[in-house]
């Protein structure tokens, strides 16, 4: 073989890979067999090895100036703050999602365990309509609709003034159906009784009955917790995606 003649590209690749120890066993054995028989092939190999060694001997060059970065060149740091790292955001989102799932499960279980108690119990204790409803239940049947706003304690001006009657009566402030416009005494007796029970409309002489301190129970807090944790999970996940893209 003439070393000046170009090598077959596949043979050249095999020689080059052989130099780098990248030839598989079968190819290596076949090539070594040829090398043992062909002097020109050995010469090619020696030349390629010389090129490789010469390249390896090339020295590293020194830059004409230090390549260190100034803060201005570096721009934004890798992490403006450890708190906003994508990893932390992802972890936070995962934890919030897990807490959301836990609260939701507990909420569903507690509702399922008490059929018919779907409405939060504490509404009865806290909201005025609920109090009024209980008052209506105590009143004689048919005396007021459940939506009836109970009259306040009797005042000197009487029921007409209460509903804006008389001079300058404002439309839309008429008394509710079933409640006489002129004589509300019969109707007010039940409401008065309810007012007494609920403490509304007591006379100023009567000290208000102390309200028992009622702590909110889980089923009242659960919807709020679900909203809070669900929102936190979504916001943290969005922040995690944003910080990853920003990097």
């Amino acid at each position, binding site marked *: 073989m003439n070393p000046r003649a*170009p*090598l077959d*590209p596949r043979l*050249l*690749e095999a*020689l*080059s*890979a052989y130099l*780098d120890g*990248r030839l598989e066993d079968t190819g290596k054995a076949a090539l070594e067999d040829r090398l043992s028989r062909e002097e020109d092939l050995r010469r090619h190999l*020696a*030349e*390629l*090895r*010389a*090129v*490789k*060694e*010469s*390249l*390896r*001997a*090339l*020295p*590293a*060059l*020194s*830059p*004409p*100036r*230090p*390549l*260190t*970065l100034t*803060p201005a*060149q*570096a*721009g*934004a*740091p*890798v*992490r*403006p703050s*450890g708190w906003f790292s*994508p990893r932390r955001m992802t972890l936070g989102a995962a934890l919030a999602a897990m807490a959301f799932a836990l609260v939701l499960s507990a909420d569903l279980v507690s509702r399922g365990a008490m059929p018919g108690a779907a409405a939060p119990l504490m509404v009865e204790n806290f909201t005025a309509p609920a109090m009024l409803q209980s008052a209506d239940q105590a009143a004689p049947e048919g005396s007021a609709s459940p939506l009836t706003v109970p009259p306040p304690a009797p005042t000197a001006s009487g029921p007409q003034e209460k509903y804006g009657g008389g001079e300058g009566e404002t439309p839309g402030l008429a008394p509710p159906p079933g409640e006489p416009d002129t004589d509300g005494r019969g109707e007010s007796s039940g409401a008065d009784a309810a007012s007494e029970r609920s403490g509304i409309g007591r006379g100023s002489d009567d000290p208000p009955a102390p309200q028992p301190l009622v702590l909110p129970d889980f089923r009242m807090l659960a919807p709020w917790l679900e909203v809070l944790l669900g929102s936190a999970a979504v916001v943290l996940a969005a922040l995690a995606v944003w910080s990853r893209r920003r*990097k």
Partner: protein
Amino acid sequence: MDELSLLQAARNGDLDSFNRLVLDYQSHAYSFACRMLGEPEGAADAAQQAFVSAYRHLGELRGENFRSWLLRIVANACLDELRRRKRRPAVSLEDLSAGAEEDGSGESLSILADPAEGPETAAVRADLRRVLEDCLALLPPDQRATILLVDVHEQDYAEAARALRVALGTVKSRVARARADLRDCLRAKGELPPLPHRLESEASR
């Protein structure tokens, strides 16, 4: 502080730690860029831009050797720059070597030279180096990047393939063709016989 600690500190935004890594690796990055682009200032700019990019993307370096990762960034920056220029390097690496010697940054020649070798041997080595740099500059950019990664910067085929985003077989064939082209170039310039043989023949004269 070891490299891992410096990297961790740099990831947390410590620029001083990153700059210590820059000092450790700047000659690798610059050498590659210089041999790819063929001009010192452009090479310094490209290498520094690669460090800026590396600093900003340190979070993406996971379990990989920093040097390999950096070379990958430099290689791509240089190939992009060459594609942008769409022309061969305007400055000969021969001029570059001469300039480096003149401005005192040519200590590379003294690194290459063995203190025990005589001036003739040192001169032969210097000649070979200059010719080799010129021959490298004549290679197509893709081949040049591949042979620089594999033979000069001692990356294995897989690392080079990852750096250049090509298949392993492509690296293998590019390395073989580049070595063959360099051999032909060296032969044409009378520098082909392996250096030990040439030194022996010089000594026997």
